[in-house]
């Protein structure tokens, strides 16, 4: 099922760029390291000097704004800022980052170690309780515990460790280069597609694979295709199978299918190796959750398998919810590819600030989301330890206000509904939703002919 989903569209199809030559080069279509001009990413102060995460580029001063309108038009959301103000913003945020980074210490290290201990204890304990899952209470307690453990493991621990947020501790057991997680996507491929592609090209239409994951149209500038009519269904399926969908995006299955004739031998080998790795990992996880653990449960085997299934499912739904709420709610900006060419440090920050959304809520909510409820702060400072986002958020918010920038945030249900509105609205061609509201379709026949007109219209547009 997921294969069809990934095959439905391709980002290169959905976003033909007029200002740039259309990329059909297979080199651009494979998951190799991206080499073209990339924006500046934050640096780390070290005793020896500055350390920079690549891809990076020396940050020149902003002499002119590099923002370019998307095809659908629209004004620069930071149009009220002068280049000098944008540079000042960049400097201010760098200073804030350095200030917090310099105070990382024993308390932070204790935080992540405690969390890992709690998570592993919870997981082990829940699995033990589930050995007797025939008992209702044991099933409920074990399933709840295991779900919570899996969510913690994926979000507050896995995601953040693989971001390098804890690399400064130099603990080889808690390090981005060695971490592996309870997820179908292997750490290596996830780090590439998430850290390098998504975080570099945040919300750049046609560049950021996370923008609709290649199966959803969540922006007016993604080209419409009749297949999007069914995207409310894809959205649900995607959420249910989220860990596997992510693995497939990370493999860039869609692109590989499309360009399979033009891939080099190396690209094919890499792709096959990636598929093998995901298959092997999935096999081990399936064996754990649906064979070994149930087998050890003896007569409780059926309910233990069900408990594991439930935990995996809830974890998928939850992580999907958190992630779509981080980038798709109303008010979040997307950007044209041309905007990031020669983007300066200040502009890079601006794009992160305007291209993300927060979820408000109590501390438990922040923990459950892996602090991705502070998505804005996370995108501005991706390798800052997650336990520090809350304190940084207060300062960031003040900076947003001072520079008169919209800080998109709201409670979970508001953000989630807002995402759904987009999913439904953009399942139709641009403007069609508005047409529909003005002139509701009374009969099935008129409805079909209306749809036909839309499809024809989109074809014409394409030609």
């Amino acid at each position, binding site marked *: 099922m997921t294969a069809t989903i990934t095959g439905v569209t391709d980002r290169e199809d959905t976003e033909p760029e007029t200002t740039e030559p259309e990329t059909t080069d297979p080199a651009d279509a494979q998951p190799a390291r991206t080499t073209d001009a990339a924006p500046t990413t934050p640096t780390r102060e070290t005793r*020896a*000097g500055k350390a920079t995460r690549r891809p990076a580029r020396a940050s020149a001063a902003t002499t002119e704004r590099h923002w370019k309108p998307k095809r659908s038009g629209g004004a620069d959301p930071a149009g009220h800022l002068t280049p000098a103000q944008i540079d000042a913003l960049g400097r201010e945020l760098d200073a804030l980052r350095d200030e917090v980074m310099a105070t990382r*210490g024993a308390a932070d290290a204790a935080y992540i170690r405690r969390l890992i201990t709690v998570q592993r204890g919870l997981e082990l304990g829940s699995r033990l309780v589930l050995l007797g899952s025939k008992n209702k209470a044991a099933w409920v307690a074990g399933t709840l515990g295991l779900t919570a453990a899996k969510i913690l493991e994926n979000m507050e621990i896995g995601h953040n460790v693989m971001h390098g947020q804890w690399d400064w501790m130099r603990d080889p057991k808690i*390090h981005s*280069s060695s971490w592996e997680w309870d997820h179908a996507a292997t750490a290596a491929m996830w780090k590439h597609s998430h850290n390098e592609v998504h975080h570099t090209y945040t919300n750049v239409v046609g560049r950021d694979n996370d923008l609709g994951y290649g199966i959803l149209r969540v922006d007016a500038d993604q080209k419409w295709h009749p297949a999007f009519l069914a995207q409310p269904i894809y959205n649900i399926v995607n959420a249910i199978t989220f860990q596997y969908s992510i693995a497939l995006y990370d493999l860039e299955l869609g692109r590989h299918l499309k360009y399979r004739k033009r891939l080099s031998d190396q690209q094919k080998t890499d792709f096959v190796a990636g598929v093998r790795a995901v298959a092997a990992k999935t096999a*081990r996880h399936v064996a*754990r959750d649906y064979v070994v653990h149930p087998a050890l449960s003896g007569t409780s085997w059926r309910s233990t398998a069900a408990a594991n299934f439930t935990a995996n499912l809830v974890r998928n739904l939850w992580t999907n919810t958190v992630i779509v709420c981080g980038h798709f709610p109303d008010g979040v900006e997307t950007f044209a590819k041309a905007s990031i060419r020669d983007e300066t440090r200040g502009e890079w920050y601006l794009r992160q600030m305007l291209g993300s959304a927060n979820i408000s809520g109590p501390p438990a909510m922040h923990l459950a989301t892996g602090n991705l409820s502070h998505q804005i702060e996370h995108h501005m400072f991706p390798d800052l330890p997650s336990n520090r986002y809350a304190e940084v958020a207060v300062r960031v918010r003040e900076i947003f206000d001072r520079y008169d920038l919209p800080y998109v945030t709201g409670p979970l249900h508001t953000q989630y509904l807002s995402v759904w509105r987009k999913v439904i609205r953009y399942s139709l061609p641009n403007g069609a939703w508005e047409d529909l509201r003005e002139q509701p379709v009374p009969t099935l026949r008129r409805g079909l002919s209306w749809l036909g007109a839309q499809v024809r219209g989109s074809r014409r547009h394409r030609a």
Partner: protein
Amino acid sequence: MSFLLGPPQTAPRPRALRRLGARALKVAEFLTTPLLPADYGSLIAPLHLSADLRGRLVERRRETADAATLLIRPGRGWRPHVPGQYIRIGVDVDGVRHWRAYSLTSRVGADDGLVAVTVKKIPDGVVSRHLVDEIEPGTLLMLDQAAGDFVLGPRAPRRALFLTAGSGITPVMGMLRNHPELTDVVVVHSAPTADDVVMGAELRALHDSGRIRLVERHTRVEGILDLRPDGASGDESDADAARTLDALVPDWRLRETWACGPTAMLDAAQERWDAAGLGVRLHTERFRPVVAATGDGGVVTFTRSGLDVDADGGAPILDSGEDAGVLMPSGCRMGICFGCVAPLREGSVRDLRTGEVTTASAGNGGGAVPIQTCVSAPAGACSIDL
């Protein structure tokens, strides 16, 4: 929980039991995927169920104003050391893991099962300050097996001379405590004052009991030990003459000698022994590399970590990489153990001890060159496969 133990490293168990254990381990590995059983075990019983060697600090005992002895209980897998060897200790200071080498001073196979190191505080020393002043009993330490060849060797010499200064007494104390068969021993030890002599009370007791002859040099009043040949410094006063090696240990040529202390002292000793044609009878141990040459530095690219570090020409790549958060393999941190070797893919590095420059050009068909990151600094831009 025996299945959590992993492959047996200790006493052999009956075969059937072992097979059962191996099978249980397989099942456990399935259950803990993507992690390993030890990743859970290390949280339950860190000393016994970790994959890596660990130790727990049992006591921190003050020796002098700036030195302390740490008594450590090593975990499963610890192998007895040879007196004079050192261990590496990994300790978290302000949340950051640091590894340093310390000579073992304890008795091999002591009844309480503890091992000991004695640490002397160095001004601005990150780890030594923490170990001497702050670390609390109960703290978990990362350990490595004992290593090093600053040892007596297969046969104890009939006559021995130990030439030490400061914390350099530690490996020697390790030998003295473990080799009662050494009876004709002279220890020449230098420290700023009598109070600064690390393990001074024990040394003096050994002297009083006749086990060793202890010559203390309190350098603040007596000046440093003069290792040059008599008369080499020209116009010598009586006092100067009295502090030469010949005056203090007239029969030094007959003694197998072990020296440990600051670079200048070791260099002078090496020169003297070599001049006397006795170089093979001198064994030295250095606690830090001799930095002879520095250059301009450059940007070090850590290819696998995806990090570029603008590094100083005087800073070992090991330090620069660690500071940037790269997981760097390391060992003695001073160029003797080769525990830090990494492939140099492109560019040049300078050996800080000799100034020698090594160049690699793997991209142009050449191979990557293994380098010791602890004694190499970038000589221009270079890339390391880490």
